[in-house]
């Protein structure tokens, strides 16, 4: 198990190198001009000389490979460079925001896994039954619903119609101290919306997995031996039915990140996701590269985690990844 983790981490190094190089190459090939984005774009008043000077100061007139190499060597010494879109050091920019994104994504993900599993098991218990049909069709509807729209709907209902929950922000808009209670109440809506967008996958996978397991010989054997329905369902069917869910956990990470992007925008959540878009359109190489490393690492760790869990849950699967 440790060997597998070690091997995967080693393999991550070339992957990260290639990915960051690709980011620099793609960004350099994009039509976006850092100097123009920096200047705000499109308003008269910024002349060519100022644009040229900005381009030079931002280093945007140098080849991307050289910039990548500079970034890489500096990053290895712990210097992540300076974000041009946020006008502050990258480490500081990420440090200020990432905790809130992790909190939001973590809460939403945990909720999606738990509720998704519960609903999936209930649906699988009686396939074709009323609950199954309700849960399944709801899952398909939610899967098709854009997170942005769900967010607005949630704001409209919970903040406007019932006044039960705050509509956005990390804390009350008028308050400038961050307290746990305030963050908790402000977290409910965005986390719930993000969880709901992730939910269908887990529901459908668990339903399918548990349903199939219920038809398999071991389960039928267990039933025949007169074990209680509860033991059969939770002890046998759920255990083998959960296996696909474990792989799903790893592969859902990228989608979780893009979902967080939209949800953070709707709820003015001060996370890292919104900075990502600005970094991309602003050709903010240092910030973009650091965020790409983070996202890639999240995906790699997610995959590793699901493989490890898979191995633990099913002894037939070894750790030779």
């Amino acid at each position, binding site marked *: 198990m440790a060997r597998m983790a070690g091997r995967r981490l080693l393999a991550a190094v070339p992957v990260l190198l290639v990915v960051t190089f690709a980011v620099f190459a793609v960004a350099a090939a994009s039509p976006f001009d850092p100097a*123009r984005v920096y200047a705000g774009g499109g308003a*008269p008043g910024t*002349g060519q000389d100022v644009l040229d*000077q900005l381009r030079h100061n931002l280093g945007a007139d140098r080849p991307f490979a050289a910039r990548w190499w500079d970034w890489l060597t500096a990053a290895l010494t712990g210097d992540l460079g*300076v974000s041009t879109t946020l006008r502050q050091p990258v480490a500081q920019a990420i440090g200020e925001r990432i905790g809130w994104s992790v909190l939001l994504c973590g809460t939403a993900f945990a909720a999606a896994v738990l509720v998704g599993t519960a609903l999936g098991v209930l649906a699988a218990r009686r396939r074709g039954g009323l609950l199954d049909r309700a849960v399944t069709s709801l899952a398909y509807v939610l899967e098709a619903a854009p997170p942005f729209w769900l967010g607005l709907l949630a704001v409209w209902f919970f903040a*406007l119609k019932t006044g039960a929950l705050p509509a*956005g922000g990390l804390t009350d808009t008028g308050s400038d101290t961050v307290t746990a209670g305030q963050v908790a109440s402000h977290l409910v809506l965005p986390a719930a919306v993000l969880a709901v967008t992730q939910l269908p996958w887990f529901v459908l996978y668990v339903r399918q997995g548990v349903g199939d397991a219920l038809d398999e010989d071991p389960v039928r054997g267990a039933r025949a031996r007169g074990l209680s329905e*509860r033991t059969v369902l939770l002890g046998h069917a759920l255990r083998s039915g959960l296996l696909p869910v474990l792989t799903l956990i790893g592969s859902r990470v990228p989608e979780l990140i893009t979902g967080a992007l939209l949800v953070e925008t709707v709820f003015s959540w001060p996370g890292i996701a919104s900075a990502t878009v600005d970094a991309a359109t602003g050709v903010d190489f240092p910030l973009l590269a650091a965020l790409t490393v983070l996202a890639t690492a999240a995906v790699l760790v997610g995959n590793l985690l699901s493989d490890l869990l898979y191995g633990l849950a099913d002894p037939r699967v070894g750790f030779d990844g």
Partner: protein
Amino acid sequence: MTARSIRVTAAMVAAGVLATGAAACGKPGGGNGGNGSGGVRDSLVVGIANEPETLSPLLGYGKDGNSKIFDGLLRRGADMKLRPALAASFPKVTDDGRTYTFPLRHGVTFSDGKPFTAEDVVFTYRTILDEKTNNADKGELAAVDKVTARGDDTVVFSLKYPYAPFAERTVLPIVPEHAAKGQDVNTGPFNTKPIGTGPYVLTGWSKGEKLTFKANPDYWGGEPKVKKLTMAIIKDDDVRATRLRSGDLDGAILPPNLVKGFQGDDSKTTITAKTTDFRGVTLPTGNKVTGDTAVRRALDLAVDRDAMVKSLLEGAGRAGYGPVPTDSEWFAKGTERPHDPEKAKKLLDDAGWKPGADGIREKDGERAEFTLWFPAGDKLRQEHALAFASDAKKIGIRAKVQSGTWEVIEPRLKDDAVLAGGGNPADPDFDLYNLLHSSLALDGFNNMAAYKNPEVDKALEEGRRSGDKAVRKAAYDKVQHALADDPGYVFLTHVDHLYVMRDNWKDLTTQVEPHDHGLGAGPWWNVEDWQPKR
């Protein structure tokens, strides 16, 4: 037994989920930030659409005044007239308009307690003009040659050429040398932790969420009545409207269609800010079609500006005939062009543009068509572009409307038209010179139409050099008349900015707003002077 137990479990789980949901709903939401109804009205929460990248004036923050954290040498009142701020009085202009001498106000301190001196002014201007400073707006100070301090309380600006509107530029905020020096001006901590002499002190900046301020008790203009000020950053228009309705915000900027939803609400007032924020179509001289004066004049007559104001802006705006709005004191009366498609057609007929088989005119084998770009994602510009194309089609000219990012559009400006926007209310020189002077043709975002008219060039120079207002007015009248005869752009509208505010404060006003509206524009431009309604 077994089936039943499952059902019971399911019911319990469902009940549990509902109970948790109910508990969550039951929690005090605390969404009503700012002033609770009936409480002491000493805080204000407003929703704005754009977050500043930096709070450092050295990088361009607050360059048009009203920065809340900072003061400039001068500032503008509701009438847009200048008055002294950190300067003790208006500058003395000598040397034929080339030297501006500002006496400074005594006894002003920065919010960290250190005194404000002439060195701070010198440091601010010199740093902005420094090559290594990434300030995109430094071109606005292009006239400045030297800034020097004379003693502690006098600052002297020497200009490269006589520049009449220079005083308008000195609303630019002054930063403390002791706090901003010795760090990377482009990325240092001063960008997020500013210190100024202004009426408010920054207490927190949660990026992507909000900026919070508290009143500066030692403000030289007196401590503001609104003690706490929050600027919530909400990019999406609908979310902003929703949070305003939920009581989360006291005021917000909104597009016209969302403002309509608040009209039945007695607790809110809608405030309309007049602007110099124009939308217009560039007519590139390099293009065979748009470069033809007959076509330019015909398009200028063919557009139905009043219909655009009515349908695109829902009445919140005015017809525009140039960068100078019709109600400005600088507007040349009599240069309004009526909507007259018949006259436009006749102009084209006379110039030899004859309708072809498909109704599009032709002349010497050239079809009367050109591409009109608008920046992708800008809905208002898209609508203007489509309305323009539809009006042009009625007189037999085809404008092919396309969207793209500025990176795509900019290299094509020489031949293609673009739906441009802009506007700075402070002085006619700011817009007119940049848009029309031939020396700035296709220079970045200046003079995007490559307009070239020697008479206009001469009048523009006269206007910026002369210190005599009557001479300047005559010069700008000349420019506007020339623009009516040979339009370099078809100006369409001036767009009002709309704000919905909770009705808690006395006598709210707005200034004439520029194209950009940052933290300082809006009814809260002078929040430091507000008095609660009793």
